[in-house]
């Protein structure tokens, strides 16, 4: 296990370096100038700013950046929010995205597993058809449309729930539902298929023959094995929900990192884009590793070797 983790960590360093290199040079090649605005200051100011952000010499900046990050643990200053360093921006927005993502995923996980079990047990019956149609709709409808519909139903036509913002639990319900619904559908589909497979296997037939009740067979014998794919999917799902939340953040005025990231790209805020990309990469790599380890721990059939 230790060897596996060390091996994966070494791989991650390589991944991080590759992502950094690609992001950096793509940003350099992309059109647009971060210091150009509606009211142009005198050229001397722009030159001084470029020098301060070390952007006059891309090759030097490319090598300098990791050095600063590793030696000082500092991601540098942002360009578009000059009162906030990149680290401060991430510190303030990442918890927001993580809280929203975690809630959305918890909701998707439990409802998804429940829907999947029901679908597998009643496969082919009307309730399964309803759930399948629901899943298909949830996967195919883009979340900005789903979110807008929720907004109209619960915040415009009636004022059951607040339209967004951040601070109270009630404000989280609509964005979490919007963000989680796609993952709910995927999880439900996964759970349905894997439960159905497990229910066909020999050991379930044995359990049945021993006179176990259907509920006990499902909960004690079938579900633990059936939920293994779910566990494996949770890692990428957690990373995906965190990195893909910008539409929901905009729609419901959630001050999270996704929208800051999109704005940083549009503003060509190079240090901020690099910083957030690196954080996203670290999260993605960690989540995948965590899911692998969790699967190995839950299923002795999976052997982890370095």
């Amino acid at each position, binding site marked *: 296990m230790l060897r596996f983790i060390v091996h994966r960590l070494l791989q991650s360093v390589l991944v991080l370096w590759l992502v950094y290199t690609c992001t950096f040079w793509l940003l350099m090649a992309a*059109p647009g100038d971060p210091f*150009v605005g509606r009211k142009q200051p005198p050229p001397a100011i722009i030159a001084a700013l470029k020098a301060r952000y070390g952007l006059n010499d891309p090759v030097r900046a490319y090598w300098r950046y990791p050095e600063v990050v590793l030696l000082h643990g500092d991601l540098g200053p942002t360009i578009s929010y000059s009162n906030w360093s990149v680290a401060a921006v991430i510190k303030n927005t990442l918890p927001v995205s993580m809280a929203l993502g975690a809630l959305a995923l918890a909701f998707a996980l439990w409802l998804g597993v429940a829907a999947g079990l029901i679908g597998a047990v009643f496969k082919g019956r009307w309730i399964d058809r309803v759930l399948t149609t629901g899943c298909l709709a949830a996967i195919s409808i883009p979340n900005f449309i789903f979110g807008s519909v929720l907004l109209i139903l619960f915040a415009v036509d009636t004022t059951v729930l607040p339209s967004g913002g951040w601070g109270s639990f009630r404000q989280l319900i609509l964005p979490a539902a919007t963000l989680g619904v796609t993952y709910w559908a995927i999880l439900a589909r996964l759970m349905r298929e894997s439960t159905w497979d497990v229910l066909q296997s020999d050991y379930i037939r044995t359990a049945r023959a021993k006179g176990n009740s259907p509920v006990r067979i499902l909960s004690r014998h079938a*579900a633990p094995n059936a939920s293994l794919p779910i566990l494996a999917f949770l890692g990428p799902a957690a990373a995906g929900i965190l990195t893909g939340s910008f539409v929901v953040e905009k729609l419901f005025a959630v*001050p999270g990192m996704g*929208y800051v990231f999109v704005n940083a790209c549009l503003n060509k805020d190079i240090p901020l884009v690099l910083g957030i990309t690196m954080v996203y990469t670290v999260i993605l790599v960690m989540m995948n590793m965590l899911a692998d380890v969790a699967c190995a721990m839950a299923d002795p059939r999976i052997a982890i070797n370095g």
Partner: protein
Amino acid sequence: MRKTLLMPTIILLGVFLICFWISAGAVQSHDAIVFCQERQIHTIDPAKMTYLQDIQVAEGLWEGLLQFAPGTLKPIAGVARSWTISKNRLKYVFHLKRNARWSNGQRVTSRDFVFEWKRVLQPHTGAGYVFLYFHIAGAEKYFNSLSRHPHHHLAFSSVGIKAPSPQELIVTLNRPCSYFLDLMAFPPFFPLDRRVMEQYKAVTDGVTGYNPIWTRPPHLISNGAYKLLRWRFHQFLELVPNPYYDQRTQVKCRQLKVVSYEDATAAFLAYRSGVINVLGFIPNSLGPALVREARDGLRHDVHIRPVFGTAFLNLNCQRGVLKNRLVREALSLAINRHALVKNVLRMPDVPVHVLVPPNTIAGYHSPHGMGFDPKLARALLRRAGYPGGRGIPPLKYLTVAQAPVAARMAEAIGEMWRKELGVQIVIDSEEGKIYQEDRVHGNFDVSDSGWYGDYPDPSTWLDLFLTGNPNNDSHFSSSTYDAMLRRASLERNSHRRLALLSRAEALLVNKDFPVVPLYQLADGMIYNRASIAGIAPNFRMMTLLKYIRYR
């Protein structure tokens, strides 16, 4: 089953609770007035700001030598209790109040002003409005010497800013400036507590800077109506009255929250549900409907008026057929502004044929612009050698993506030119920063644009078309025009100066046409007058947070 899914669930809920606790923590107070701005705060460093949302907050946190009077926005006594102006209007002596204090209780002295003004003049500070300092004797030379010879620059003593005593500040100008007092109420001229700033000084690569943490509570020290209690990134700024402010009886709001939403519709929904008390802008997508409802008497909370801003087209004077003055004139004459405003914008913007918004500057008479005249336009095009638009390649019309109105506008204007002149356009809709870059570098034939005046003087508009001005997007260069503006800047008689400026504007909108003015912008706010008082919608769109209060 329980075992396999219990762990992820516990982890997810744990992450949720911890992160939510870290990031939310904001206590909703019923006393607070929530003021929503259109855009996020860029910076609250008064030296660097150029955007309205930043300036409005700075006007609440700091006070300059002078401050804006509610309603009229005339400059009145601020930190300076009185001032004298020499006869030749070049020397200003400001006498500071003895009881002006920072939010930490220390006295505000003239040295704090000198400290900050010197900081603004350092190129690496990145002060977008540094050119406003160039009215002060020696300031431009000092700035240029710093940017050219960082190590052998002129001494700051060569600049006409002197503090002979803690209560006295003397400023000497290059030439008379009729709006200089107005500038004293503008953020780039605000003071900073030099003793506090000293703690955040950081020298990197031989350049003196300040750790940006000084702008965030509890580090930020200001001298205005409010102090900054909390600032959550992209969430809110929480302002509470500054206990050391000498006019604190005028500050009636006990807690002010300044917020902004990425999505204007989301902001409007929040206003509707009562989360926001004052919406400091009219959401674009809802504008026409809201205006119609207000006109029909269905709602009384929409306050909209023409402001100190103009929307216009830049015609690139250095490129292709547009080098020809006659072609530019023809393009201008073929646009029906009234139709654009009435059918495309559907907002109370005012069609104009001049650049400086009419009747906004006392004593300034706008020239007569050229109206919609397609017949004359066709004749001009024929005279230029392009009868019926033949020989003119499709013009590149640069506009910004993410602005649906701008795209509709481009299509309408393109159609007018096609129909009246036979001139085709290609609409190039670009992302913000790319659009800005192409605009600045002249990579277009026609670009849509707009400008909000910074101070109540025609020069805030007319300087744009000076040769070499960084904002001269039309790349217009006329020695006659430059000479006229120079003469105006040397003219000491205010009436004669304004008359000269009016003639210069006539050159732009009647003769050379580097710019096609379209309409004077209208802007507004949404708030309920029955519950909120102390806001006076004004032509500069400046809401003075100091006076805002519950009724």
